[in-house]
């Protein structure tokens, strides 16, 4: 039994090779009845690359007749690939834009189907003894940024955030991820107005390391994927400051958490036709217990715990249970 997961991801090749070797060893022990066959090509998001390749490995173990190719060149690469028919699934960390939908429609005569698959949420954490109750996006920029593109000012000590002495006199020790992490890029885009991280931000090689450091250091603040939170740290809510971004706060009442985004799969299939078996099998696997486990391991949240609303998206059942 040989799982052939061809990975064209330029970056995670080594890790995936190890994964492949490992998963074929696991696959040998599982008894599977092959139901679907074929080649699935998934193109798109960088952020989702690791998760999608984990899903793909696990799915191929269950369905050995399937081969999966992953190309992770960024969300923008998904719509053209779907339009041209060179990908079955497009993974995106945003929804398709109007012009992307337009050009898809012009080519194919119908619209692609969007399936929300995961929520990527960044939590701001501090030590449990920290008296701070909430934080603003501008504060985060003051703390983490080198050039303070959002806020225009720096916050180096806890007193700058309005914390009373003892802790107020101490420096804010900033923890975060290394530049290769999707969390890093997402935080930088949303909280730092695309500015640079300050050189003094401690870049740790894993989310769990950030949580562990913050749980032990009273002067620390950290950002991490929601999936890694433990009860050893205090999660700070983000409140709207004077200058809270309206571009990112989609709802009129501003109730949407600004450091959260939904990640999507786009399917290209004619709504008049029966749903594609292979794609649906893969989506159903994602929704299964094992799929959710992998999702949480990757630091994401399942969609049903989603706090922001997902407009007009069809549920998996609605898409795939079309027997007519």
């Amino acid at each position, binding site marked *: 039994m040989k799982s052939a997961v061809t990975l064209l991801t330029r*970056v995670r090749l080594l890790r995936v090779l190890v994964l492949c070797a490992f998963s074929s060893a696991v696959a040998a022990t599982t008894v599977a009845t092959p139901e679907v066959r074929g080649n699935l090509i998934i193109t798109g998001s960088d952020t989702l690359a690791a998760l999608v390749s984990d899903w793909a490995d696990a799915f191929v173990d269950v369905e050995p007749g399937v081969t999966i190719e992953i190309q992770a060149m960024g969300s923008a690469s998904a719509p053209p690939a779907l339009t041209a028919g060179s990908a079955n699934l497009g993974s995106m960390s945003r929804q398709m834009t*109007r012009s992307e939908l337009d050009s898809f429609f012009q080519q194919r005569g119908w619209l692609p189907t969007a399936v929300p698959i995961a929520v990527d949420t960044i939590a701001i954490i501090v030590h449990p003894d920290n008296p701070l109750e909430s934080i603003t996006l501008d504060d985060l920029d003051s703390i983490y940024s080198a050039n303070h593109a959002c806020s225009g000012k720096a916050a180096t000590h806890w007193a700058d955030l309005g914390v009373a002495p003892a802790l107020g006199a*101490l420096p804010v020790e900033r923890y975060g991820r290394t530049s290769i992490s999707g969390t890093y890029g997402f935080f930088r885009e949303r909280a730092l107005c695309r500015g640079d991280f300050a050189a*003094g931000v401690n870049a*740790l090689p894993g989310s769990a390391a950030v949580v562990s450091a913050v749980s032990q250091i009273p002067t620390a603040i950290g950002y991490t994927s929601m999936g890694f939170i433990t009860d050893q740290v205090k999660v700070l809510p983000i409140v709207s400051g004077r200058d809270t971004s309206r571009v990112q706060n989609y709802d009129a009442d501003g109730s949407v958490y600004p450091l959260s985004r939904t990640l999507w799969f786009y399917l290209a299939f004619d709504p008049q036709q029966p749903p594609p078996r292979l794609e649906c099998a893969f989506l159903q696997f994602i929704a299964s217990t094992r799929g959710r486990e992998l999702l949480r391991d990757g630091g994401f949240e399942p969609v049903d715990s989603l706090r922001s609303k997902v407009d007009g998206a069809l549920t998996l059942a609605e898409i795939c249970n079309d027997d007519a």
Partner: protein
Amino acid sequence: MTMRSVFDIGVSFVVRATSVLVLCAVVGMFVQMVFVAWPLTQSVKVTPLADAQNNIIASERTPDWVPHSDLLPAWRESIMGRVWLREDSDGAISGAISPSMDAAEQWVSLRFNAPEIPLSVLFIDSTQRWLVAVANDGRYRMASLRMDAVEWGNIERIKPFDYHAIGGANETLLFAAARSVRQYHLLKTAGSLYPELVLARTWQVSERILGLAAAPESQRVLILAGPQSIELWNATAQQRIAQKALAEPMEGIGWIDQHHFYAEAARNQQRRVWKVEGNTDAITLASLFTPVQYLGYPEPSQVWQTSSVGKGQEQKFGLTPLLFGSMKAALIAMLVALPCAVGAAFFVGFFMSNRARNRIKPIIELLEAIPTVVLAAVAAVWLAPIFLLVLPELFFATITAVLGIPVASALWRFAPASLHGSRYHGLLPLLLIPVILLLIAAGVLLGGYVEQQWMSGSLTVWLHEQFHVDLVHLNGLLVGIAMGIAVIPGIFSLAEDAVYSVPRHAAEGSLALGASRWRSFRDVILPLAWPGVISAVAIGAGRALGETMIVLMISGNTPILDWSPLTGMRTISATLAIELPETAFSSVHYQILFFAALLLFFITFLFNSLAEVLRLRMRKRFRVLAS
């Protein structure tokens, strides 16, 4: 030929073959690194495309965003991001913001005025927070798009200009007047509601500028300098990266995509197209090691920030902080390791009895068996969180131990004569262990007392209030201690060998003449052994420079330029470990990482060569001594 000699020949062949292989491997690695980094030295190539290709490429590129014609029939300004704009016939600017990607149907219409200014630039920055309107005479206004009501800021003024271009993924505005190009960026200062257009960079070209165009998603700027010359500049480096003389005079220039540009004799006439290849990032030794003016920064700085948000954002390749970090980590580690390792080597190699030496030496060398990742994990999980709490104790324990041991030795003279017998001589150090433990305990108590009494209970608060010194948990001292422990056994082992291998009869002579053991060591053994000791130190330093796991896990990977041992650092080795697996093959970033690797290789190679030269010299001396 006996079996034995056949065996000997075989073994010697294998030994020679492997040493040649190792040499080949080292040379091969070097060649590979140079090969990967080599494209950085290549100059930019600009090649004209043949006519047949012109038509294909010159056909209009579809923009990323097109106005939705049903909704907005009258809009004529270009679109950047999610905000649509137009200038109405009465001079007012109106716009619409698509409030959400999730709800593309909901449009919020905005109307705001920019009276009396004939606009030439209408520009939205990449974060889509600021709308900038610039008039030909250099007056500009700025509006915030994040507030519910869009309001204009004051009219400010930059220098008048003839041409403008929007470049580098909408982060910057370029203006040209006469022979100079000026690049402005948005800078927000504390307290001000609106950012300002601030001059970031400026440079001169040889001829009067007749056209200006910035390549999409990059810092490449095309300039029509006089009617018959095209210059290609890299704005970040402020360097001309290519120049092309034109056969016939041209009027307009522009980009087709990132790598193709055109020139046209008159508007929409026959275009000529060129292709740009090569090192357009204009990476030079100067740009790697000296401060560079980046967009969004108030002054030139040395920054290592290799990832970018959105396409076209400047990548910042300042290698100085990394090189500095490697040096700093190694230096602090050596300061920790050197006294311990060399002191122990002197003692074990000369003063200790053979019997004790045979037991102690393997124990210290056993330390080397601990994988550095284990050391790093222990330091990260256990030591780092409590490091600042125990710092006063650590400090005073070091002081009491260092000062107390000589005092204890002096007191030893008054010990009863029966204890001084040679029987115990080799075991003397064991007697020192309880003394050291006592001294450390005293130091810990003293540290706790001093912190309570004089520093009002917290060293960190006290240091901040008294000296404005901030302590952070992941700092150079922590790295120094962990890495020091990692390199101590190596230095100790080699330095001890150097001391021990000095022929004994050299010291015996001076001892026989009545010199004390210390005197014999200082004046006879040390002058012979020092090249070996220095060589051991050099090898230790080389190892500290290349050490990866410890710095990766506990240095914080902060690329700052600060000699203080109380701040962190980011080393070349840790950067390679973090970034290399995720960097696009043959990108400039990849090439620079390999250049950094080459640099590291070169420095450790220097240290190891020094060690080898010194060792050879020591051997020669011994040979003279033996004859």
